């Protein structure tokens, strides 16, 4: 009997997801034994034309990591959707935009200016922006067009499953692949999260949690946290309460706040939920203070919270209620 076919693709991503898959250790041999790899640019030499040559639905399992940042990403998203029976948004970029999605806080023009004009170490190529079409003696060269707005995979094509994480934890990947290999039925497709928990990270976090009253926020370098005590209580913006479990609360256990890479819980907006939770535990001054004084006290605490957008939406901006900043049209 022919082995089921397997593909993995990277769109706008850092490559960490690929590493994480390889990090499942000797189980990678099971993957090789159980699947026939038909497309995996990171590890094997396949061309896009090979994929185009496959019949529709030829790929049994396709792990797609990376956000949709340019025309090439989008093209491959449509292509792989067509060719795959089961398409998995693998990792935070494909699921919710992740770090590439933070580009939605600015514009391409500004990004290009930073890289090619304002950057101090750029010399030879200053002001020479990449062009979609370049003429060289050998003929014309086309590169993908950079989109103004970064999107998650499911904002471009329907996705069957989501494996969250930046990157997904190896043991979670292993468990999903094991399940697929052994034929354990997956939940009905339709964008369901698999390979993760259904409760927030705090569930898995062994740090002692007390009633919270935050009087000041700290950035990670500003504070050596008290061991054994909830980091949020100590003023580190630990995203654990608003983040899906599944990672085993690895970061908070070693004194690093959860950054929220497993994304929101079902149907929630991670940043909005966390912000509203934070708003509820900021020390608002005493009851003897009048409203103006309390507002000042709250503002003083909130002023210590650096980079709110990058803190609350580090991973989920592209997929959130916010999506992107509005950019004024030129001349308005």
């Amino acid at each position: 009997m022919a082995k089921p076919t397997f593909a993995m693709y990277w769109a706008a991503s850092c490559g960490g997801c690929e590493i994480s898959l390889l990090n499942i250790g000797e189980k990678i041999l099971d993957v090789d034994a159980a699947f026939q790899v038909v497309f995996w640019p990171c590890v094997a030499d396949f061309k896009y034309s090979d994929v185009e040559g496959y019949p529709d639905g030829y790929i049994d399992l396709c792990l797609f990591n990376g956000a949709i940042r340019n025309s090439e990403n989008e093209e491959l998203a449509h292509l792989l959707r067509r060719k795959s029976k089961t398409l998995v948004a693998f990792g935070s970029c494909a699921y919710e935009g992740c770090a590439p999605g933070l580009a939605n806080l600015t514009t391409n023009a500004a990004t290009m200016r930073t890289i090619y004009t304002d950057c101090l170490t750029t010399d030879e190529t200053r002001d020479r922006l990449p062009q979609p079409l370049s003429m060289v003696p050998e003929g014309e060269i086309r590169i993908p067009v950079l989109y103004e707005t970064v999107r998650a995979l499911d904002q471009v094509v329907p996705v069957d499953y989501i494996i969250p994480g930046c990157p997904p934890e190896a043991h979670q990947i292993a468990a999903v692949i094991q399940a697929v290999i052994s034929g354990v039925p997956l939940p009905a497709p339709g964008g369901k999260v698999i390979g993760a928990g259904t409760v927030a990270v705090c569930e898995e976090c062994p740090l002692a949690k007390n009633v919270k009253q935050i009087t000041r926020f700290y950035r990670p370098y500003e504070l050596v946290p008290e061991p054994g005590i909830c980091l949020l209580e100590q003023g580190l913006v630990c995203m654990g309460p608003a983040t899906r479990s599944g990672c085993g609360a690895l970061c908070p256990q070693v004194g690093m706040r959860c950054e929220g890479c497993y994304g929101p819980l079902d149907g929630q907006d991670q940043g909005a939920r966390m912000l509203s939770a934070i708003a509820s535990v900021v020390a608002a001054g005493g009851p003897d203070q009048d409203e103006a004084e309390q507002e000042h006290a709250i503002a003083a605490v909130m002023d210590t919270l650096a980079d709110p957008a990058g803190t609350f939406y580090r991973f989920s901006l592209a997929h959130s209620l916010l999506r992107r900043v509005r950019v004024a049209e030129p001349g308005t």
Partner: protein
Amino acid sequence: MSPEHADRTRGSPHGAPGAEQEPRVGVYVCHCGHNIANTVAVDEVAEWAGGQAHVTVARDYKFMCSSLGQELIEQDIKERGLNRVVVAACSPHMHEKTFRNTCQRAGLNPFLFEMANIRELGSWATDDREAATQKAKAQVKGAVERAVLQRPLDPLYVDINPNTLVVGGGIAGLTAALELANAGYHVYLVERDSSIGGHMAKLDKTFPTLDCAACILTPKMVDAENHPNITLMTWSEVLSVHGYVGNFSVRVRKRARFINEELCTGCGTCVEKCPVRIIDQNFEVGLGYRKAVYRNFPQAIPKYPVIDPDNCTFFQRGKCRACEIVCPTDAIDFKQKDEIVDLEIGNIILATGYEQFDARTIPQYGYGRLANVFTSMEFERMVNAAGPTAGRVVLRDGVTAPKRVGIIHCVGSRDKKYHEYCSRACCMAALKFAHLVHERVPEAEVFNFYIDIRAAGKHYEEFYHRVLSEGAHLIRGRVAEVTDAARGPGEEGQLIIQVEDTLIGKQRRIPVDMVILMAGMEARKDARQVANLFGLGCDFEGWFTERHAKLDPVVTMTEGILIAGACQGPKAIPESVAQGSAAAARVAGMIGQRTMKMEPVRASIDADSCSGCRICNNLCPYHAIVYHEDRRVSEVLTALCQGCGACVAACPSAAISGAHFTRDQVMAQIEGILWDARQPEVLWLEPA
């Protein structure tokens, strides 16, 4: 937003009520006479609503709250099989109950009713007919979308504890306590001071009848002390309030009096023999003295004195014990400790009163700098026969009778710099003072400086004319300053009142030798803390907020917490008494029901989704959230929850939801309101 969000408004499985019934919504747009119909095209809204999804019938009608309007709804529920009702009319504060009852009468669960407030939030807020109509449509759409997702809810019933706590032993609290006690219910009357009686106990005469204040107040005080249904707790303060209507747990601290009340006969020998004499800033407002062991006044209730350890020689230096030596019944107990008392209470009446505006705040009137400028409360004590001057009207030297007295109205009141409101009682008190000066110092001339004379009350205007006929000079104008800097002959050694007499249109300088500042009423300094303690609202000035300014003046937005007297706003004695009685009647009515129906709008935590982060733990103003250390989950105690939603909003993993305000319902309402909003423009660069 995820795709699941998007289809919810389009009649997805979420949308079906109880999943077995198609939603059939009736929409009723109220004209409210001209109130709404003048600004909103009600017929257009109704016609449009009729074409919207889920809507079975849509009508507009002159007065939906009338019996005919309500019958319309009942009829449609029965004949058209409506299973949801939306009324677009006034605020739910006004008529939500009305229409819920309408639905209930027709056999529809009252929580399947939704109100869209197109009056306060629409027609009253603008003259723009088109905009108001458009907004009304959005509100109706939001209400329909929300109603579709509503679930039937059953009311909760709680038992009402028949005991009542009255906080404040002034005339309002005293009246409320006596009314309830006479009705046969037990009352705990907690007073911060050492005696009940409040401000009224300091007064000499009351306007306009010139009744002796003590003569009408002390019998009530004695009644309260002797009443078998009243537990008097003076020198006491409420520390904490937990629970909810019908079932409050209240902790009270009884401060140590250092007098054994069982043994004390109130003979007063200790007071007499105490060698320490200090200025009484409280009861005598700085005009008289008291001892370190003292009673506010001879008729104080209870009669037991208190020892003030800050000034008592024994407490300060470990010596003296004069009171202990002279006490015939060995009632002095220096070792007495504060006592904590826990009470189980059904309803709470706050009658915590007011404070007098600090006249020092207005430096140009000279109080505290110019000796013969007095506050109105100082003058009250001065004219009181039991006061520091035994009723003689004298200058600060204690012997000279004044020849010319200026009474300045509206000190701190009706002034945007201090308090914009009118303190209500001061005009009449000022006229009473004019009368009393004439009575006590017949040769003296009296000048009243007023903005307007506010003599609205039974026999008030008549009293004003009586004072005029007694020869008081009334000068209309706000006083610019009171100064002792003489400018001309006749002004030396006098206090000069500089004022524009607005009736003759001239600046005047009136020399007097005594000035009385009619300092207004303001909310107590700690009103906001008290409001937080009892969970009720305060307005900007610190007055407690009633549920409805006209129709529900003694009830607050917190069930079971009532207010009476000047803590709600400036009041004279008759209004305070009326409110005390009104609050007592409301409480008696509540106790009479024995059980009470409560809104089932409550939060609950899905234990499976709770990660135990404890963010919600200290948010609940009703202390309804408990944390189970063993299971590492939090829980909302339904009986304590008041449905405010603070925890629902705060829960970072959305494990807490509020019945009748679920996330689905709220999101559906928002999406309904935004029915015609443009989709956000996504900047989008197509591939070349």
